[in-house]
């Protein structure tokens, strides 16, 4: 097999635990239990599943717990297949590549009170934050957990429930709670956040409409794609020699698209300064962005780690 560049963090499934109806907690560690790349409370990671699917999950352990990534996965029978694969096929000892953690909640300088509104399994990012705040005492918090009947991850929430830091609202008994009184009054030192199904995040947005945007955070079940340049557009690479066609997604680098498509390109800096990834181009409108090619070289070559395209189609000499 041809050696490929490493693009994910290698983890091993160290534990699988049932955590409520249809929910499993997966603990991922380095094969030697080395520390994993650091993360913010409630950050998410992409799992590159053995069946080729890439799925994003929130971490529910806290940053100080730095040798594991713990994710809670609810089995969605008619979902897109990621949760089914994890529930049905993944075993302890399996190897899963994951991305570097992204996003998460900033505990926030000057914030002394947090109110979290979670719907069902949407509790996961706040569990991470709650553990972090409970341990560091950086700020006060209340987590309102809205569920139909059963509390997900209950074993992990009991002590916080006893302390009154987690308040459970069961819609089967009391109906859907009004969010405004739970959130309380806006204040510069209060941060409110919500993670749950769409109806709930809509209610939450209405309830916080008058709040300063910096003090409100909404986390959707479908994690937003990594931030990309709003002007970035997708385009297609045509490889003149092999005849292959490769799609480059908006915001993706040509290099990443080529690697995904199984085309091996030498790289080193990945930042347009070393010259390792130079490729000839034949037709199109490349946007160069490198810092090494001379103007006359740019008429024939581009650096795939940083170059983009101003046209829908770019033909490479590959």
């Amino acid at each position: 097999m041809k050696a490929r560049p490493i693009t994910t963090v290698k983890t091993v499934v160290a534990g699988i635990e049932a955590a409520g109806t249809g929910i499993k907690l997966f603990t991922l560690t380095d094969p030697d239990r080395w520390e994993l790349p650091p993360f913010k409370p409630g950050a998410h990671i992409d799992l590159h599943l053995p069946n080729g699917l890439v799925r994003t999950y929130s971490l529910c352990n806290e940053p100080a717990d730095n040798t594991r990534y713990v994710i809670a996965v609810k089995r969605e029978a008619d979902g897109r297949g990621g949760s089914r694969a994890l529930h049905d096929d993944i075993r302890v000892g399996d190897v899963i590549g994951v991305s570097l953690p992204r996003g998460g909640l900033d505990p926030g300088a000057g914030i002394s009170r947090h109110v979290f509104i979670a719907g069902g399994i949407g509790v996961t990012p706040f569990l991470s934050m709650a553990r972090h705040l409970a341990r560091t005492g950086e700020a006060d918090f209340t987590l309102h957990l809205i569920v139909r009947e059963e509390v997900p991850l209950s074993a992990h929430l009991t002590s916080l429930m006893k302390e009154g830091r987690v308040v459970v609202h069961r819609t089967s008994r009391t109906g859907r709670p009004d969010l405004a009184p739970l959130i309380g009054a806006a204040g510069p030192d209060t941060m409110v956040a919500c993670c749950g199904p769409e109806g709930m995040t809509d209610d939450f947005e209405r309830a916080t409409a008058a709040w300063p945007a910096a003090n409100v955070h909404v986390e959707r079940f479908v994690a937003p794609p990594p931030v990309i340049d709003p002007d970035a557009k997708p385009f297609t690479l045509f490889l003149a020699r092999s005849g292959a066609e490769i799609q480059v997604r908006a915001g993706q680098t040509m290099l990443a698209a080529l690697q995904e498509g199984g085309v091996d390109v030498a790289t080193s800096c990945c930042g347009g300064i070393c010259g390792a990834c130079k490729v000839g181009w034949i037709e199109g409108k490349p946007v160069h962005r490198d810092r090494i090619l001379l103007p006359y070289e740019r008429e024939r070559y581009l650096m795939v780690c940083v170059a983009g395209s101003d046209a829908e189609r770019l033909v490479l000499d590959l």
Partner: protein
Amino acid sequence: MLDTISADSAQSAARLGWTGVVRFLHLTPRAFLPMRAAESITLVAGRGIEGDRYMIGSEGGFYSHKPEEGRQVTLFELETLVALKRDAGIALGPEEHRRNVTVEGVPLNHLVGRRFWLGETLLEATRLSIPCRHIEEITGKAIFDPLINRSGLNCKILQGGTVRVGDAVRNAA
């Protein structure tokens, strides 16, 4: 002009000028994982550092698919960390630059193609390190640009042994 002065005078300058010291030692077994500090590390001639991702035969490094004899051990100047703070206002720790050995008082950029002692081990500098875009992703700090041309030195190990924090770094004849 350069071809008449380069070889000889540069060599004598390097021979005359410096003695440095090992300030920090770090390694990690796999790409992206945090570097762990060590009080001492073991260098194996012709292969790498025990337990590090670029030990020949390990497949854990970001560049391991392109094995390179000259990347058995990598060095970084403490002075660059000081300069980053001073000139760019960026606090970068010795565990964040992802090179193995942080030295003080060693003119790394002058040593390409030369041999020097790192504690009891003998190294040959093969090329300057190039900053890698991924370091910004890993550290969350915008350090790619400020590290151009001062991103450390790649070396191969001619004579192995143990390197400890506080060891001297000296030019080899």
